[in-house]
Structures are given as C-alpha cells and as structure tokens.
C-alpha cells in the first residue's frame, strides 16, 4: 500500500491525476444538460453563476483578508447594467458582459478607497451600507431602472445551428463565462499579484517592507472582486430575464458571504461548493420545513461550520488528516501486544511471524493481530 501511495505522490502521477480530474469534470459539465430535466439544468446554471460571484468575493475575503457585506450591490449593478443595455439600447447580450465587468470594476475601485482606511467590522459596516442603499436608489431612478416594477428583458436564445434547447444553450454560455472567470481568478492568485495579496492578508507591515504597495493591491482586490460580482450579475440577467430592486436586497450580500464561508475561504474550488450551497440549501430547507426555511438554512450553516470549520472545500483534507492520524495508531498497535506474545516465545512462534507479514500486507492485519494476543496470555498462564 505504501508503494502505491508513494507512486501516487510523484509529480508525474499527480499531473496525470489532475488531467484525469479535469477530463472527468469537463465530461460531467458538458454532459449534465443532456441528462437532467430543464429545471435542474436551470439550477445548475444558477450554481455556476453564483460561483463567479463567490470567486470574486473569495479574492477579497479569503485571499485579501478584507470583508464585504455589500457584494450584492455589485451583483445588482452588473445585473442592471445588462438589463438597462438590453432594454433601453437593444444591444446584444454579449455586449453587456464587458460593460458590466468594466462598470463594476470601476465601481469597486471607487468603493475600494474606504477599504484602505477601514478594516474588520468597520469595513463590514460600510460595505453593508452599499447593499442597504442600493435597492431604494434603484426604485427612485425609475426612468432608467423601471422602478419597483423592474425590467423584463430577453433571455438568451439558442442560435438555430446549435440545435439546443433554451436552458441547455444558456447553461453552456454561462459555463463558458464561468470557466474563463474561475481560470482568471486562479491565474491571478498564483501570480506575483496574488502572492502580494495573500502576503498583505497575513502580515501587512512585512508585506510593505518587501515592496508590496498596500494601497494598490487592496483597492485592486476590491475592484477585481466587484468585477466578478458584476459579471455574475450580468449572467443573472441573461438567465432570468428579469431584474427588480427586491431581488438584490442586502440578504443577497449576506447569503453570498455565508455561501463563501461554508464553501471554503481561500480555497480555489470553495466558491463552486459554496454556490451549490447557496442554490440548493434554501430549496432543500423549503422542502424540509414549510414554516421556517430560514431556521433550517441557519441550522445547516451551523452544522457545516461545526463539522467543517474550514468550509466544505477543506472537508476532504480534514477527513484524510483524521484518517492518517488514526492509521499510525492502528499500525502502532501490534508492537504493543507483541511483548504479550513475546512472554511465551516457545509456545507459538508461528503467529508472531505471521502477524508481521499481515500488518505489512493487508489493512485488516492489525485487527487480526489485536485479537491474537488478547486470547494468548491467559492460555500461556494456564499452561
């Protein structure tokens, strides 16, 4: 077994495994819309779109060590940018994506300025104020945003050549954007810029002494993060085809943050898990309890945080570590009982040699060996 583990640990095997994982994930992602019912495909689309928003939030909160309770506002800004462009100016869907991204980037850059001076709870409060203040503003700007009634716009339509149903086409478009966005986030984090961001999170003054310009990296983290949220919002408009101020209340911001923490902060695939949580758990809790889905949702968050304090993404690692902790104890057990059998060396030399072979060969070995000496000493005493 050890040989297998070491063989798997080599760089080449790891690359092979990574390639295999990517291949399987791609196959699953591409095959899903043909396998599931339209509503389920729609749900998957929403998971992908939330994953983009969470990946952005992850840049800021997980890797940047800042906090934002206002990302729903950037999400809304992206969604409304797309909706207004589609509704008032009749631009194509694709044109709304760069506009929403650029707009939210600039918005984030502006709102990132308070992040330079405030931290922790104070920053949380300021960002929360964006989220609280946006819906009333959207209601007021009726000529542009359609007020409380919101805007209804065209959804994505599959081109004739694709031969796909609407939900399938939408899924694939969102999948493409999500893939690009997540890859960008990953690239960013694995570069000089990402390292600088994480260094600032871990130790601000040391980072500055090493030449990291704090103001630049902090504001840019905010801007990138807002841009991802804006892109997610734009996708939301494409998928739902309707925006209204009440869809983007401050609960959305809090749900996003909760989803990220549950999915796993500072983890590359935590946002995907968190997005699934954000999408599915409310509907599951609705099924569990008609009366109080909120309570079930809350309890589920608490449960996840107790079972996996590092988020769902950290769970496999924790489980493996727990197993690894237990395993040495199991294999360490034989030396303990060995003296017991050693006290009667003439009596049974065979089992001892056999037990040695067993422990190295098969996992059940320890249990067998454990069973042996327990019965053994009384027998030798009787003799």
């Amino acid at each position, binding site marked *: 077994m050890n040989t297998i583990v070491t063989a798997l640990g080599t760089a080449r095997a790891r690359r092979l495994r990574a390639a295999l994982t990517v291949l399987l994930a791609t196959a699953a992602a591409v095959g899903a819309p043909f396998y599931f019912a339209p509503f389920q495909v729609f749900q998957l689309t929403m998971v992908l779109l939330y994953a983009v928003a969470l990946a952005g939030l992850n840049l800021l909160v997980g890797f940047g060590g800042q906090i934002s309770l206002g990302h729903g506002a950037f999400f809304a800004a992206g969604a409304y940018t797309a909706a207004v462009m589609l509704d008032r100016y009749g631009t194509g869907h694709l044109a709304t994506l760069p506009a929403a991204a650029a707009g939210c980037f600039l918005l984030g850059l502006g709102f990132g300025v308070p992040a330079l001076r405030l931290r922790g709870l104070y920053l949380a409060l300021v960002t929360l104020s964006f989220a609280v203040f946006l819906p009333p503003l959207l209601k007021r700007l009726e000529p542009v945003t359609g007020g409380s009634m919101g805007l209804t716009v065209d959804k994505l339509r599959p081109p004739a050549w694709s031969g796909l149903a609407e939900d399938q086409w939408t899924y694939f478009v969102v999948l493409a954007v999500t893939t690009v966005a997540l890859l960008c986030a990953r690239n960013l984090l694995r*570069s*000089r810029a990402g*390292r600088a961001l994480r260094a600032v999170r871990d130790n601000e003054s*040391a980072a500055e002494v*090493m*030449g990291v310009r704090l103001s630049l990296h902090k504001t*840019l983290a905010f801007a990138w993060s807002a841009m991802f949220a804006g892109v997610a919002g734009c996708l939301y408009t494409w998928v739902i085809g309707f925006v209204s101020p009440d869809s983007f209340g401050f609960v959305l911001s809090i749900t996003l943050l909760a989803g990220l923490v549950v999915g796993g902060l500072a983890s590359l695939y935590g946002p995907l898990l968190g997005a699934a949580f954000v999408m599915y758990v409310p509907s599951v809790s609705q099924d569990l309890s008609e009366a109080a889905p909120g309570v079930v949702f809350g309890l589920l968050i608490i449960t996840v945080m107790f079972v996996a304090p590092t988020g769902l993404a950290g769970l496999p690692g924790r489980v493996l570590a727990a197993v690894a902790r237990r395993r040495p104890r199991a294999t360490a057990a034989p030396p303990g009982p060995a003296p017991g059998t050693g006290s009667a060396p003439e009596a049974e030399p065979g089992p001892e040699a056999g037990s040695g072979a067993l422990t190295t060969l098969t996992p059940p070995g320890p249990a067998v060996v454990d069973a042996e000496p327990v019965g053994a000493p009384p027998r030798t005493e009787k003799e």
Partner: protein
Amino acid sequence: MLAVDGITVRFGGITALDGVAFTVEPGTAVGLIGPNGAGKTTLFNCLTRRCDPDGGEMRFEGEDLLAVPPHAVAGRGIARTFQNLGLFPQLTVRENVMVGAHSRGRTGHLAAALRLPRVRREERELRDQADDLLRRLGLADVADHPASGLPFGTLKRVELARALAVRPRLLLLDEPVNGLSHGEVGQFADLVRSVRREFDLTLVVVEHHMGFVMGLCDKVVCLDFGRRIAEGPPEDIQRDPAVVEAYLGVAA
C-alpha cells in the same frame, strides 16, 4: 552608504529616539545594542519607513530616505528581518521567499489573470531564484511547507532567505538570534557571515547576544533611552564605562 543624522521620534510623552546619529560604511557590519526600550527597533522602523521621525535626516547612498514611500524602500536595496518573525504564516516557505522578490517583478494584475507568456517566464525565474536561495540556506526540504509550525530556528532562516530575495545591499537584522539555542546561535552566525560575503552585504544588526554582535560587527553603536551613548569598534565598546553602566548598572 547610510547616514543617520539627528533622528528624533516621540510617542506621546516618550522620546524613543533623541537625536541619534551614526553612519554605516559600505561593506561593513554595524551592531546596534542597548537595553530593552533603548529605541533600536524604532530606528529600524524609521529606516524602513514604518514610522516617521519627528526630526532628523536619513540618507541612503545620498538619497533622502524620508522622501521614499514605504513600499519603495525594498526596491532601493534595503531589506530587513523582524524581531518576532514577520513571515506570512499561510504562505509556503517558497512563496514567502518569492514575496521577497516582489519589488523585482513586473507582472500586473491583468497580465497575471490572463497568464501571458511573459508572466509564466517571470514566475519561473522567480521560482528558480527562490529555490536557489532555499537550497543555499538548507531549506529546500521545507519549501512547500506553510511558514508556520516549523521550528523557530528554521523560520529565522526562512526570514533571512526572504530578506535576501530582495537582493539588498543593506540588510537590517532585528535580533536575528533571539530565541535560538546556544548551538543554533553559532550556526546562524556562520550563516550570516557567509551570506554577507557571498551577496556583498552591508549589515546593521540589532542584537542582545553579545558574542554574536562582537564576533560579527566591525563597529558597534550603543543606545540608551533613545540616545547614542557610545560608538566604536567592538573591543572599545566592551570596555566603555557608559555601556557597562547601561547594561549592568553600577553598584550604589
């Protein structure tokens, strides 16, 4: 190379540094000693622009350091280590060292997100340089380990590696052997001596371990209550009555 003149720092009513002046010649090692609270670390903080002096002047190779923004100090060729470690605990040892090379990198956010070819090239270069440094300091085995949960002596070496990654000409070491065992102090002193030769460094060392300071430094400056009370070669400082009084006190 470095000229500090009349630096004064006040925190509220306390004068942490009171008109301190000394110079550091290129290629030398200067020891900065003094009882706790004498203002040694504050002086380091001024030199790396972590703290603004209320008065005085600091020049590095003729340039006014007070006009250099804090993040640009590393780019000028000044690196430091911290008294109680200033590592990034959640980054790996290699990443810590690579952050040291931050000021030499050029990659911006957009290029990084798109992972342009030049970004890959730069990453590979920085990584190779970091690995060279890690090998040089005997840290290759822990390169992928997070910079927390390692032995203190190892972390001290990681911090030295990170400072060297800046490619400094002036290296400021703040209590480098504080908290190390007797044997480790000797090893660390040898290490500092060899990297000093190899990388052609000028050193300023704050340290309480007199054996380390006297063995390494060409000149020692002694501070007490923010004032310079002595300056000279190590053998003179050891016999200086003011230094002995500050450190040991005199019988009443």
